[in-house]
């Protein structure tokens, strides 16, 4: 199967897409990413703002209606969900390959 040319995702992008399986605004994305990564990935606002901008341009995420006019809300698109699943499979395969190598 042809691999999606967008793979592999960076750790930051992977967690942002994962956080956006459910709709969220910027600050909520930051807290979700920090929590899901067990505190390992802490996004600063300038970095997150640029990443969201890029992901919207790549159509991996999209705007959804927001009740708060000062906070835009995003969610993954179908493309975004596919890329996220594809990267998860890629990593699962790497882990499997590692474990097999360990068993010798």
């Amino acid at each position, binding site marked *: 199967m042809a691999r999606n040319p967008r793979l592999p995702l960076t750790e*930051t992008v992977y967690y942002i897409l994962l956080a956006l399986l459910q709709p969220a605004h910027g600050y909520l994305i930051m807290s979700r990413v920090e929590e899901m990564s067990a505190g390992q990935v*802490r996004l*600063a606002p*300038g*970095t997150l703002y*640029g990443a969201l901008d890029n992901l919207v341009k790549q159509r991996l995420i999209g705007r959804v209606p927001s009740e708060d*006019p000062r906070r835009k809300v995003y969610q993954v698109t179908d493309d975004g969900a596919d890329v996220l699943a594809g990267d998860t499979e890629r990593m699962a395969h790497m882990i499997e390959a590692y474990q097999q190598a360990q068993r010798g």
Partner: protein
Amino acid sequence: MAKMKFFRDFDKEEAWLNRMAADGLLLTKAGLRYQFEPVTPGSAVVRVDYQPSMPQSDFDDYLTLFADSGWRHLDGSRLGGPQYFASTSTNANTEIFSDEASKAQRYRRSLIAHGGVLLMFLVFSLSAWPLDLLSVSPREWYLTEGLWDMQGAQFLGAFLFETIFVIFRVGVPLAPPVISLYCAVVIAYQAVLYRRATATQTV
């Protein structure tokens, strides 16, 4: 309290603003003339981002994201340019970028913005190239009859008086080429800074 400074290197600008903050002077207005207010020395970290022009609703969202994560907007226009932030007391973080790659993108955004201005003023320059002004000696920009034969105070008075008009008559047509040149220099300089910022990254 105000100081005149000119920066096109965001890292150097940040370093200078933080030295001022460490001495108890926090930025209130940036640009060629930087204005400051007295604060407790070392109570705030100042950081600089760069954003192109954006609609008011986008700008509100941008500033809210920074405010939510503990950064107060000090100065910067939604019509584009550097954006200045100070950490608030509740904020334990000292960076607005969590990786070097996204920090380097400041220069890229600035390069693109200056490229747009350059293109616009190049079109102005080429469509109205002030050939008649550039092909003659600057002496001929002065139209007062016999100006260059006058002596002493009479010459000085007439010369300075007409200079005011020359600045407008010559300055306005020369502005597009001068602005184009300025943009080209900024682009070249920031391109070097951008390359340097991205070159330090590992794979």
